[in-house]
């Protein structure tokens, strides 16, 4: 029990400590691919510390919601990220580590972010919120369909059980799983405001979505939001790794060596995920905002198709 608690605590601290590193790593990979030098991967930590030291400037007509939202968003994202088995399965909270619960946590974080964007009443916040909600209305159903497919294949919505099922020999090559993976990657790109959907490095008013909502934040509030955004990226990469490449995940009660191997494998998976993301972002152009429904609609269709094909292969 004590060791299980310790592992869970380790997991919670690992996700929050690694998240800025992952963001920095993706930025570094992108810069290198563009033949720039790029900042060091620990630059996001420096940014966060600087932001925490700075005074928070708050608009005159901001309500309590504006001040509370960053903490709520950060907390919800952190809990969601801590529920995903990153290097070990069978965490203490794994009975709550339901995929639907994780989506609900992320959904509530997004809800508060959209509210906070509209709270001050500037036009940019409003634009950002409306676009974010438009993306969410398509991304969430696709995510749920992907979950249904996985749950139908694995017979559970619990992450630990799905990961265990995926490593077992009975899973086989399933085309519905391949389709679900593609759809999940599309949703993850949209959810994390990465390049074809939104550019995380721009403040151009015509295109920004996420940045427009957080434009009014400064100081420690901004630090919370940035950390939550990094956590969300880490969460999605961990989720994909846990669901589709769950190798070397340590079981509960395995020796310290298994945990070390699991940890090393997790770090390798994160780095690989970050490198692939950077490669993809460098190779694609940002799409118009009005193309985003097509992109996410395709993810939704793929989710449906995956569920459908799942029934076909079971009907045989």
């Amino acid at each position: 029990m004590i060791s299980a608690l310790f592992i869970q605590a380790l997991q919670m601290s690992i996700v929050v400590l690694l998240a800025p590193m992952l963001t920095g790593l993706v930025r570094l990979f992108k810069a290198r691919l563009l033949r720039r030098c790029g900042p060091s991967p620990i630059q996001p930590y420096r940014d966060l510390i600087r932001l925490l030291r700075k005074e928070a400037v708050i608009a005159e007509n901001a309500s309590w919601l504006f001040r509370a939202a960053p903490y709520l968003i950060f907390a919800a994202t952190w809990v969601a990220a801590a529920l995903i088995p990153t290097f070990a399965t069978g965490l203490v909270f794994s009975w709550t580590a339901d995929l639907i619960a994780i989506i609900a946590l992320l959904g509530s974080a997004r809800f508060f972010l959209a509210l906070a964007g509209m709270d001050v009443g500037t036009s940019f916040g409003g634009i950002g919120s409306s676009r974010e909600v438009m993306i969410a209305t398509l991304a969430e159903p696709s995510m749920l369909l992907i979950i249904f497919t996985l749950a139908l294949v694995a017979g559970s919505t619990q992450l630990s059980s799905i990961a265990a099922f995926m490593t077992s020999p009975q899973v086989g090559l399933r085309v519905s799983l391949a389709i679900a993976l593609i759809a999940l990657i599309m949703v993850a790109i949209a959810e994390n405001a990465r390049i074809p959907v939104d550019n995380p490095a721009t403040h151009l008013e015509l295109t920004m979505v996420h940045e427009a909502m957080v434009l009014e934040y400064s100081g420690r509030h901004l630090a919370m939001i940035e950390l939550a955004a990094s956590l969300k990226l880490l969460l999605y990469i961990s989720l994909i790794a846990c669901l589709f490449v769950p190798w070397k995940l340590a079981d509960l009660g395995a020796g310290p060596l298994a945990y070390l191997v699991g940890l090393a494998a997790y770090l390798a998976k994160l780095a690989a995920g970050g490198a692939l993301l950077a490669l993809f972002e460098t190779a694609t152009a940002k799409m118009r905002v009005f193309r985003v429904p097509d992109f996410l609609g395709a993810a939704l269709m793929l989710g449906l198709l995956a569920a459908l094909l799942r029934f076909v292969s079971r009907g045989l």
Partner: protein
Amino acid sequence: MTGSVFDIAHMLAGGLVLVSMMMLYQDRLYALLNVFALHSLVLTLSVGWQAVIQDAPHLFVTAAIALIFKAIIIPVVLHRMIRQLGIHREIETVVGIGPTMLAGLGLVALATVVMLRVTPSADPIAREDLAFALSVLLLGLLIMVTRRNAVSQVVGFMSLENGLVLAATGAKGMPLVVEISVAFSILIAFIVIGVFLFRIRERFDTVDVRALDDFKGRRRK
């Protein structure tokens, strides 16, 4: 062993349906052609795998025909044609991408429901292959219906033919003669269509088939 045999056949045939859906999503001609080449490549792999599991060496010939003609020659020729016609920047769909994909999904559902109902006693791999092949066929028809540009209609036609080949190889014992004659008739059709494309273009200065409707005096609203 039977598990992995079935899994790989399932994966490749399902991959063909997936690539067909990708073709529905593409609205640029070059992208459409690249996806079509991928489609033919997946077909080649699928037919090759069928050759291995059915122990039927003549299917390797089919796979080679698919690879050489459909994955290499036809895309390259169409690329060149698009460049000569000067239409490589055109974007066209009759209906939006969303409704098209929804219709495609409906067709896949229809194909699987029909095929699984009518073939209850057949071999699982053949059943699944037939269901997927019918989906690919219907999706190819859908591509032909939803596009205005004659070149993308040709691509839809070729993907439809890929579905036919998938069905033929899934069902055991299609003679090689039939396969070769089908492949060559497709090639002839392709050449004829190519000639027609240039004629249409010469006459109407466009390959948008709406021009033909206007010519016949049947106007669209």
